[in-house]
């Protein structure tokens, strides 16, 4: 991967969000720089769910936050519904951001334990002075009902009285309060039990249909995103490896990293033995990423070319783009 390039970009009218050459770097002390996101471009069409998948430290969360300008990227453009967010003055950016909301990974610590559920969900509405007090109260109840919580039982309680799954429902209700057009979900189910995961994934799908949302779904688990996504983007160490529809990504992954990720998912079936060895080692440090293809140090197919030259994203089958010199066939 390692790849740069824009071959996978679609330039049609349906594109809601366009991200071009996004770079996020953090200072690490001693003059070193953490290359969290390195020149990534992607786009999301209206009503689509884009899944961003990768291991810890691949930059997927940083990328999701950079889209919301939290913090603003070092360079690159984020164009949402025709407006370049990276160039907006602060106040205008704040107001533009109401159309894009985020759901965080840890549902318990992302809610203020001192606030009642009623206030947690109403807060975005009064910050933006939406509706009268009565209208807001009605809205809060409606939101709670929509996420499957009984308003009578939860309105006057605080977040610590709820389980992880219930807290995530509250977070989702809060994020939908301003009726955003785009929802960025950062590992929304990875802190939850398997049985509760399914409830939240189904809920997100429902909300997407009900509110006509466009979604970015960030996860490290390919099995989880399979159920919800229309397009998958696999990331490794701040770069894109592969982009494609779930059908091709799962049936014939072209990138060796994608294939390794798929093979790491536990199979709930004792009669099916794993045929391949799991990926060895861990990603190298983003402070000093490998030259050329950033995956080459763990790649079974790496050659000298991979060290010398960075692969560019190219189309290997209709709608499937891969950044690899030696894609799997």
């Amino acid at each position, binding site marked *: 991967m390692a790849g740069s390039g824009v071959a996978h970009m679609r330039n049609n009218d349906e594109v809601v969000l366009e991200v071009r050459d996004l770079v996020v770097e953090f200072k690490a002390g001693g003059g070193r720089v953490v290359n969290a996101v390195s020149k990534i471009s992607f786009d999301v069409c209206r009503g689509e769910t884009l899944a961003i998948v990768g291991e810890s430290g691949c930059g997927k969360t940083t990328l999701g936050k950079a889209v919301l300008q939290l913090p603003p990227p070092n360079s690159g453009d984020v164009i949402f519904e025709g407006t370049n967010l990276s160039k907006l003055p602060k106040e205008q950016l704040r107001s533009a951001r109401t159309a894009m909301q985020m759901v965080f990974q840890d549902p318990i610590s992302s809610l203020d334990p001192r606030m009642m559920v009623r206030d947690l969900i109403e807060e975005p509405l009064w910050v933006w002075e939406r509706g009268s007090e009565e209208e807001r109260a009605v809205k809060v109840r409606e939101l709670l009902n929509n996420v499957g919580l009984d308003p009578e039982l939860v309105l006057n309680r605080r977040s610590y009285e709820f389980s992880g799954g219930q807290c995530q429902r509250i977070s989702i209700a809060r994020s939908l309060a301003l009726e955003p057009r785009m929802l960025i979900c950062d590992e929304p189910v990875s802190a939850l039990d398997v049985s*509760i995961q399914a409830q939240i994934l*189904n809920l997100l799908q429902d909300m997407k249909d009900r509110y006509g949302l466009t979604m970015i779904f960030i996860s490290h688990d390919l*099995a989880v995103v399979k*159920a919800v996504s229309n397009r998958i983007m696999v990331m490794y160490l701040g770069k894109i490896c592969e982009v494609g529809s779930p059908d091709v990504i799962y049936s014939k992954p072209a990138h060796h990293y994608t294939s390794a990720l*798929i*093979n790491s998912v*536990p*199979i*709930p079936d*004792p009669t099916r033995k794993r045929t391949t060895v799991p990926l060895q080692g861990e990603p190298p440090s983003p402070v000093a990423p490998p030259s050329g293809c950033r995956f080459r140090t763990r790649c079974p197919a790496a050659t000298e070319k991979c060290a010398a030259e960075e692969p560019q994203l190219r189309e290997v089958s209709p709608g499937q783009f891969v950044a690899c010199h030696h894609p799997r066939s």
Partner: protein
Amino acid sequence: MSALFELENLRVQFDTKRGKLHAVRGVTLHIAAGECLGIVGESGSGKTVMWRAAMGLLRGKKVHRSGSVRFSGRELLPMSAKEVRHFWGTEIAMVFQDPMTALNPVRRIGSQFSEALVKRLGMDKAAANERVVELLRLVRMPEPEKLVRKYPLQLSGGMRQRVMIAMAIACNPKLLLADEPTTALDVTVQAQVLELLSDLREKLGMGMVIVTHDLGIVAGHSDRIAVLYAGEVVELATTRSLFARTRMPYTEALLKSIPRLDGKRGETLQAIEGAPPDPVAQTVACFFAPRCRYATEKCRTEHPELLDDGTGHWYRCFYPLKAPAQ
């Protein structure tokens, strides 16, 4: 096979402001030497409390434990904290869920690791240091000589979990208890750690218990699986039998809620609606009845016993699912 570790009718209750909280309600399980048992249950099913109570890690005025816990024939429950400590590390080792907080952040890996060897095995410092490097190599850590000089915060989650595993096996325990060993880790690292645990078990001939909420994790790595719900064993069978001939509606629901790679896209996942019962409330009904799609009047008025279907496949249900012919 002789039982290495036996739980018999283990009950754990806590005194709370709201009344008695029943965390574990009479669990009977045994683990043979060298065997791997998977314990599966949701949050709050009592799986962690069960092991902590059995190991004597949970004790105090407000904790009531009853039943019997035997390790190699010796009764552990009546032992004082001091006596039971002798078993920790040397006979039974534990690997915890959160590798981030289980290590001392202000001491180098080598020093906190070798201390355990000096105290437990009476090794001298030089020999302990050598053994640490050897153990780290055994858990496939790259460059163990350099690693011992590092602090935990310099390691990733997967590496820390491997250090924890190396510490756990340092005294050649007969039993390794792994409580959600991979929940905090990425899928790729999870696969590595599970492979590592399986390898070590074979190499060292340990018995092993993997406690998890994810049936997928134990499918490939355990010999038998016990499914826990509301502090009770609801299904217990060999791994093969549990998956091929699931009898318990709860187990079936758990299996269906796992997002699968071979599942259809866009398919709605079958979530288990509702939540486990309040552990303070008492009921005569089947605990799973309120969430069970097959529940009848009988399930709401009587509590089912754990039954053997004749093949060593145990289940706790009045209306077990039909087992396909073998």
